[in-house]
């Protein structure tokens, strides 16, 4: 492993550069052809507030840019949420979808649609549900010595199924085709309809939560030694663990609120990041944010171009990529044996 990649500053610089490049490339691909140079010029004009109304401008600044920013926000949020959950439960298989947080949050979001409340309201509802779902899992799975991996995952998968069933129940009870359609669209996972207005709520909250997480990296290091060990080294595990859990739930529900249930990002990203930068959280956590953003941005580009003019649901595509990665991960964990 490269020693440079184990320090935060180089990782942040390389990562942000990679994000910038990926962002610009993503603005240039799509059904409508737009020459790269023109995209670049439009982007610069857009930032400096110049330039005139043109098709490329609409395309780049109104259609592709919000979508790319949304993808980055979803990916970064889920990557960081997965990283926090894995440290907190010291379990390499923990992730928002595997412990039921995402499904609970999706239920809250769909319930918001069902009740017809405002966007911000349904984000809040989704957040509350994420916390309820996660607490149910942790309450059931808790033993005297922390959270045994198998129990957490089994409970999480089942609670996830419960909330999936509740979502099904809401769909069954939907008032009309339109409501049903919205629910289905919401849950397939995708950024079809993304506009600047939900992003104005979600992106700042996501950034703020990730910033909070960046201040907690030392605590995540301690948590990944186990609760007993974190406690003996002076960490107030109760309140800080709760705060980290709330942050992970918030990130998950923010991601769900704009892109639906996007599976596997929260699981795969921390592992990939750990391979590149190692397990120390002051580097790992920013790496998870960067890698998660890159992954979802890349997958979304594939989703909207590979079957053009049609579009694949984002969640379907991340699962197609995620399941094999998950299986490879399981295999490597079972080979490594004990320490997992």
């Amino acid at each position, binding site marked *: 492993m490269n020693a440079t990649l184990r320090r935060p500053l180089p990782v942040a610089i390389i990562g942000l550069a990679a994000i910038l490049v990926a962002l610009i490339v993503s603005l240039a691909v799509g059904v409508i052809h737009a020459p790269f140079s023109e995209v670049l010029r439009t982007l610069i004009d857009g930032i400096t507030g110049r330039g005139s109304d043109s098709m490329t401008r609409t*395309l780049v600044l109104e259609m592709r840019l919000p979508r790319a920013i949304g993808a980055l926000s979803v990916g970064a949020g889920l990557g960081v949420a997965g990283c926090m959950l894995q440290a907190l439960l010291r379990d390499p298989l923990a992730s928002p979808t595997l412990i039921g947080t995402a499904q609970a949050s999706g239920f809250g979001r769909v319930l918001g649609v069902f009740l017809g409340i405002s966007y911000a309201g349904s984000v809040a509802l989704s957040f509350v549900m994420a916390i309820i779902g996660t607490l149910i899992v942790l309450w059931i799975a808790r033993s005297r010595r922390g959270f045994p991996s198998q129990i957490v995952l089994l409970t999480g998968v089942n609670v996830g199924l419960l909330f999936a069933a509740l979502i099904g129940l809401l769909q069954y009870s939907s008032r009309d085709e339109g409501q049903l*359609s919205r629910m289905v669209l919401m849950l397939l996972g995708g950024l079809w309809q993304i506009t600047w207005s939900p992003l104005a709520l979600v992106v700042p909250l996501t950034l703020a939560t990730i910033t909070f997480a960046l201040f907690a990296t030392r605590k995540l290091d301690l948590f990944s030694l186990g609760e007993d060990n974190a406690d003996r080294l002076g960490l107030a595990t109760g309140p800080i663990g709760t705060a980290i859990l709330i942050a992970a739930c918030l990130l998950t529900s923010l991601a769900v609120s704009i892109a639906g249930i996007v599976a596997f990002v929260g699981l795969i990203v921390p592992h990939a990041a750990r391979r590149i930068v190692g397990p120390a959280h002051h580097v790992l956590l920013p790496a998870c944010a960067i890698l998660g953003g890159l992954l979802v941005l890349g997958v979304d580009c594939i989703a909207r171009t590979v079957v*053009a003019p049609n*579009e694949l649901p984002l969640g379907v595509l991340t699962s197609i990529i995620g399941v094999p990665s998950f299986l490879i991960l399981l295999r490597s964990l079972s080979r490594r044996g004990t320490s997992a």
Partner: protein
Amino acid sequence: MRHVRDAIALTIVLGSVACTREHAVAPVVGGPHRIVALTIGSVDTLALLGELDRVIAVEEDCFVPGTEKMVKIKNDDHAGPSKALNVEAVLALQPDLVIAKEDLRPALGDRGIDVLWTSNKSDLPTVERIVQEIGDRVGVPDKARAALAQMHAREAAISKRVANLSRVKVYYESGRPGRTSGRDTIVDEMIRLAGGVNIAGDQALANPQLSAEAVVAANPDVIVLSPWGDSPEEVMQRPGWNRIAAVREKRVHRIAERDRKMQYPSPSCVDGCEQFLVPWLHPELDETAEGKR
């Protein structure tokens, strides 16, 4: 433990005997009069043939006038074919004929009831076949033939009206953003009949999911929305859609709730085509008509 196992085995054996104790379906004298019609198109067809009083139950979403007091059967095709239908509710009605789409065969087949299967497809040839089959089954083949002849006549009339007009590009949105109707669906055919070109008309999928950019790139002249989903105002506000001719010229129309039968395969979809699709696609027809007056 052993008793339990035996009991289970016995149940399975008896159950399968009961199931295979089939199924000589006797033809009903005077035609069926306890019909459970699980497609909206078939109910509409029966209404058109004046045989609605033979129907005792329809699917839950059915909106055909005259079916309001009938038993409603939940048939939610979004949840997967065999799971979504309450088969017992159908059987309990002791129907002498069930009309259902092919995709309900796993749920309704081999149950000892007479089922008229209709195609999952929804193009015009399918509509014609259904009308004739239903007419034959309820003993009014002549009425069916007449209805079809009338339908053909109206199709011909519409074709003639729009024959010399330019083809208009149409984007139809079915319920959720980007979801539309592909080649040889009833909507596709109605658009074609009304003198339009469905922008997804070259797609083999029945319900393709277009990307937002693809719609902008196709630049339709008219956007037609199903009665559910985003409203015309919401659609016109989608980012970048102000580049679309239909949005610029405010030619975004939503099919009214009462007119939704245009989307279902039955002869009355031609009504819808005539009543609102043609005027939406060719507003100039109205103007010339008014001009003459």
